[in-house]
């Protein structure tokens, strides 16, 4: 049977305009990569929004897979942004193949 190892998968919902701040933080944390998934609309405490690129109000999901320690360091670094800029972060354990790619 194929061998899998456990890594953390982190998902951050961020403003597209501010996406670079998140990916820069990921790069600084020494994580091997990240992936951006588009988002079309949502509702939170500040009401409903729709994808309105013309006005620059749209959001994206930034996904990254990393070893637990780097993941926690990233979460720590992003924490103030979460509060100030209204980003959302969630993370959970996943099994991956070839874990060395996500160290």
């Amino acid at each position, binding site marked *: 049977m194929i061998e899998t190892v456990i890594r953390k998968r982190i998902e951050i919902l961020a403003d597209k305009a501010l996406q670079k701040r998140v990916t820069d933080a990921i790069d600084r944390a020494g994580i091997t990569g990240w992936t951006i998934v588009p988002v079309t609309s949502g509702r939170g405490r500040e009401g409903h929004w729709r994808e309105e690129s*013309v*006005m620059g*109000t749209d959001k994206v999901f930034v996904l990254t897979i990393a070893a637990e320690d780097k993941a926690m360091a990233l979460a720590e670094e992003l924490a103030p942004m979460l509060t100030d800029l209204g980003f959302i972060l969630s993370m959970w354990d996943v099994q991956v193949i070839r874990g060395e790619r996500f160290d």
Partner: protein
Amino acid sequence: MFETAIQTFTSPVVLFFVLGLFAAYVRSDLAIPEPIAKAMSLYLMAAIGLKGGVAVAKSGIDGTVIAALAAGIVAGFVLPLFAYVVLKSFGKLDRINSGAVAAHYGSISVVTFVTAGEILTGQGREPGGFMVAVMAAMEAPAILSGLMLARGAGSKSGTQSTGEMLHEVFTNSSIVLLLGAFAIGMLGGAQGFAEVSPFFEAGFKGVLCIFLLDMGLIAARRMMDSRAVTWRLGVIAIFLPIVNGAAGTALGIGIGLDAGSAAALGVLCASASYIAVPAAMRLALPEADPGIYLTMSLSITFPFNVLINIGLISAFAAMLTGAGGATP
């Protein structure tokens, strides 16, 4: 004046905007796909830049052009100060949000300018081609002004170095495309433009119709979803374009512009940005509330300008030049 209003309201461009407002109001699911909206805004900027460049290639750059550029840049720096005072006192906004909103009102809206161009041309008062360059010059100064007003309060995690900020401002897509197309228009001249004019000229009004349909949808939907804007802010969103529009027009006449160009300067002063400045503020002042500045500029000032204020400014410019009878 009444005639002007009628003209405004039988222009297909304005009627499509009204259709958009209406469709959003009755909660229709009508929507322009977002990549299409973005492409239309790029198209409009490329077309207007080209046209302006070709016009300036023909007319050359003289003292009036320089004066208009200078007037625009000064207005871009000064208008936010006035807006800031009004927003803090009457509007009861805090420092950061006042600065952010002030930046929007000092900067300009390309689509308002384009729509005004169509309406003014229809009234026999076509603005000079160099006004496109004035518009481009007015995009950035207000951002710097607004930030300086807001920054005293400090900004935490959102802080961006001034270098980054300036880079952001001078390389944002609308500035690059507007000025790039302007330069292409100047280099290629009328002959170069002739080759591409079926695309950039013939399609222009039609694209503007569909774009304004979309703007109507977005403006009305945002208005209906929004809760952040008080009646005081609503009043300011009408008051500022009236005062700024009149001041800009008078300034234009004062420096010797023709009625059309002076009215265009008035419209630039009256209009509030809802593309470039929100993007810059989101980066530079992330603590400011987009719900306030977008709703004011996009859902109140923009429709007010398109539906009413352009007509007022045009009439005012005509009055100042004593050319009220210029309407054909």
